[in-house]
């Protein structure tokens, strides 16, 4: 009798334990499946023609991207300043003088810095003396999203934007080490005193979190263009649109022009293209 009871209790205990842990297991395995899906590993094999530097295409859904036509910026370097100023204003980006603590969403840099994997030998004066815009590439296979231990940075499934949840970020800075483009900035101190012109439509950040370009997700939701795109309106310097829509303007530009991406060897499949 006693033996039976003992056996029953053992069985009951084991069942309860299994019941408790099963959802956790399911949760763990399902998140990993979603994660690898957004990482692009699950994408069906690309047709041979598509396997080039521009990366594989997702079969469905929107993937927002950008073409930066440097020919417009060579002529008018002030245009880049306008685009940067628009971004700073739209996102309350603090202007911190110390380069060590700088917060940068879109910024100016040289060709050699932007494309270190390209040869820098015997470049034309035009390229050597011009400033290029650098920003988050909103990669199809973002290494920052892979690295983040809290999913505070993630791919927005409906448009492919690599977004940030400033309230979930623990400030471990793993994403900064993981990003091959140096697109991420950390708030080493309270950024609010360094905001020159406060915009009430976008949240300011607190110290201790990472931030970066968000492709103006908040403006897109209102039917507006990204701030930098709007600042260059009429010039065609920055073309923004859906890379998965073969009839979009950006795809027409990509069909006609020779474009390059930053560090294709990193395998992150950037969504920002440059016409140099």
């Amino acid at each position, binding site marked *: 009798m006693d033996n039976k009871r003992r056996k029953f209790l053992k069985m009951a205990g084991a069942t309860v334990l299994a019941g408790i842990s099963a959802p956790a297991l399911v949760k763990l395995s399902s*998140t*990993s499946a979603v994660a690898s899906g957004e990482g692009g590993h699950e994408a069906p094999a690309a047709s041979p023609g598509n396997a080039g530097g521009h990366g594989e295409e997702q079969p469905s859904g929107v993937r927002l991207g950008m073409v930066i036509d440097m020919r417009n910026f060579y002529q008018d370097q002030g245009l880049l300043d306008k685009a940067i100023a628009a971004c700073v204003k739209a996102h309350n980006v603090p202007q911190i003088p110390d380069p060590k*603590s700088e917060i940068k969403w879109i910024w100016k840099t040289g060709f050699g810095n932007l494309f270190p994997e390209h040869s820098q030998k015997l470049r034309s004066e035009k390229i050597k003396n011009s400033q290029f815009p650098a920003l988050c590439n909103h990669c199809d296979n973002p290494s920052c999203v892979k690295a983040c231990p809290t*999913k505070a940075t993630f791919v927005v499934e409906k448009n492919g934007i690599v977004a940030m949840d400033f309230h979930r970020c623990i400030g471990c800075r793993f994403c900064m080490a993981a990003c091959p483009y140096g697109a991420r900035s950390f708030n080493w101190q309270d950024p609010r005193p360094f905001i020159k012109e406060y915009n009430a439509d976008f949240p300011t950040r607190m110290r201790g979190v990472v931030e970066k370009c968000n492709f103006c997700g908040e403006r897109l939701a209102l039917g507006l263009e990204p701030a930098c795109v709007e600042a260059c309106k009429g010039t065609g310097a920055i073309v923004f649109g859906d890379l998965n829509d073969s009839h979009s303007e950006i795809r027409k530009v990509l069909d006609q022009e020779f474009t390059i991406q930053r560090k294709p060897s990193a395998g*992150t499949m950037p969504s920002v293209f440059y016409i140099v």
Partner: protein
Amino acid sequence: MIEKTLKGKPAYWIWLAILGSLIAIGWACYFRQYAYGLGLTGMSRDVSWGLYISQFTFLVGVAAGGLMLVLPYYIHNYKVFGRITILGEFLAIAALVMCLMFIMADLGQPLRGLNVLFFPTPHSMLFWDMCVLWGYLLLNLLCGWVILTAERKQVPPPKWIYFFVYLSLPFAVSIHTVTAMLYCGLPGRHFWLSAIIAPRFLASAFAAGPSLILIACAVMKKFANFDVGEEAVKKLTTIIMYAVIINTFFFLLEFFVGYYSEVPGHMHALEYLFFGLEHHGEVYNNLVPFMWTATLFNFAGLGILAYMKISKMFDFRLVTVAAVLIFLALWADKGLGFVFAGFVPNPLEEVTEYVPTLNELGITIGVWATGFFLLTLLYKIALGVEHEVEE
């Protein structure tokens, strides 16, 4: 058993008082950092990890190094290590506590630390690192305590504990492997993107951990009437020598790959570490003196140990000197150079150098002092039990 920590000679209390004041300084510095933000450190947009993460990385190795005492005793039934196995387990506990404190010191939003548990993310190596670090800490607490209690009662340890002892062996390897994977899985960081990082971490860990135990044994011999025995020391020096040689070999392979292939990305960090990196007419060479000192110490320590083996002489003081040299060399290699050089140059091929601030050093020393405080208490308990059994 905790009562053993409450009785000691004046030297014991003076030592604890010194550590206690360093801990107090550490906390004062931490409150400053907590109030202002990580801007009080020398870290920057380009070098986004500094001393905290580098010390964390090194100390994970020290914790894993305890394996070199536990494994011979439990797997190969090497009885000579019977008296010091517990030292390896307790060292792992102290080292892991330091690791976790360094992680907390490094977080921009420490109060959100539990988000790692609330939103478990298996594709992040940091998630797995948390799992194995906590797992190894709990395993060592359990095994150390149960086995020491059994020793005190002079009965054999309960059979079930061996399951956890054997489980702790792969865990020791996993903590340093996963810590290496934090680095070696990142695209665009050439210095870290190398498959030899994990084996190299393990090799240097298996030298650093036992070296620290030898140093502790020397201190305890002088102050606590604890003699570990010549045979155990000799065996430990053999283990340390092999581990140092393998680590050096792995490091030289990195040099070969970089300088023979002449792929710039593979050379930059090594150049920065050992010769200074020239960039736009300026030479960046902060770490060069540290790395060459480490190289010297590495070979000097190895030389002393080798000389003693060849000439068949034994001098515990000389062994201690070698252990100190090797420990410092490995600290400079992994606790400074490895992490800092990974950020040079940055992804846009600009160079920013990292110099820790005084406040940051205060916190770092405070954490180390906390670890040594804990280690002292744990070793005091272990020795107290041994002395009690002997009486």
